[in-house]
């Protein structure tokens, strides 16, 4: 009889714990989290901001918003250009990224909170410097260059790092050269 009661108590405790856990999971699901969307498809076309004998500077702006149900923090955000020398070896590439709502000139990303449905804009600047000293000549054969936008998020859940990709297209570079 004792073991029968003990067995039933154990089963009841396990059952209650399971129900509470499921309720918590449901609550957490309903509560949601931050969800950042880097809208690479709707970025502005790259524009040439400056050109000298050996250097060209391109710039674009990319929309970002928090599509989640909770606020979230973007702790870090940086660009990563992908132009291996096997593909193209005529320029050196520098890249910078800035939050348009909190402009800085030191390439430092200051952690920023996005409330649900908050929108923002990031500015990506690419500087191409000719190795031979003639950037106009070098850019005639410049290929499409992917740029990964890497960002670190922390919110109610664990921190994570995600990437979005934009591309500095050869056609954009050629078009900019024609205009300048």
């Amino acid at each position, binding site marked *: 009889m004792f073991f029968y009661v003990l067995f039933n108590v154990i089963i009841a405790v396990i059952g209650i714990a399971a129900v509470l856990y499921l309720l*918590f999971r449901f*609550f*957490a699901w309903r*509560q949601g989290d931050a969800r950042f969307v880097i809208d690479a498809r709707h970025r502005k076309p790259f524009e040439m901001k400056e050109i000298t004998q050996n250097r060209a500077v391109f710039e674009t702006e990319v929309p970002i918003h928090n599509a989640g149900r*909770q*606020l979230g*923090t973007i*702790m*870090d955000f940086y660009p990563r250009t992908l132009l291996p020398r096997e593909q193209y070896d005529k320029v050196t590439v520098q890249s910078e990224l800035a939050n348009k709502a909190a402009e800085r000139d030191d390439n*430092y990303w*200051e*952690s*920023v*909170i996005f409330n649900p449905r908050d929108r923002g804009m990031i500015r990506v600047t690419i500087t191409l410097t000719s190795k031979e000293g003639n950037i106009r000549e070098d850019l005639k054969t410049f290929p499409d260059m992917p740029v990964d936008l890497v960002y670190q998020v*922390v*919110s*109610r*859940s*664990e*921190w994570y790092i995600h990437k979005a990709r934009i591309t500095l297209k050869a056609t954009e570079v050629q078009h900019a050269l024609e205009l300048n």
Partner: protein
Amino acid sequence: MAEIEVPVELVPVKTRILTDKDDIVDVIEEYAKHVVGPDDLVCTAESVVAITQHRYTRPEELTPSWQARLMRRFVPGEGSMASLYGMQAAMNLEGEWKMMFWFIVGFFAKLAGKNGVWYAKCRQASLTDDVTGTMPPFDKCIVYGPAEPDKVAEKIKQRMGCYGAVVADVNDLKRSAVLGHSKGINPKEIARILIDNPFGNASQKTPIVVIKNYAKMLKK
């Protein structure tokens, strides 16, 4: 203690970015020596005191416990404790089980109409600032409350030869509290004076505020 007539003269003192390599008392002497007189009261921002004491961590350095994963879901989103890492940071100092116990007690106390029990019993829950809580480069850090704020305030008073000193927690949301003070100071009165956040903790680099002629105003 006498009621102070407003307006009082508050003098924010600009400094370089302070780090754990700095001693807050030395810094105050270096930057505020020319401003502080014997009748003045020196106020310093608690987050900066904590940083100089190396009381900060990064989310990447923390391993969240199941208690933190559970409890952060029941804290309003704007607070530092809603963040998994803010909660875990506070737990690392207070203890997971203690935080959970008082969280449950606080829940029932709230139902009975008494707010703030959890924050009162687990001080780090109210003192810990999540990421973005302070200026770069510590915007990516979780900053704890300062250690021994009364002692820090007393040291500042002794070194500066001023009327008194406080370590204060003030923000732009009109929340002001004195966490530590030298002997003979009324913390509530100072908290009221600092309510408009003269520190400007964002990027203004003014972690020291001097209340000029505070002693003289008390005598009046």
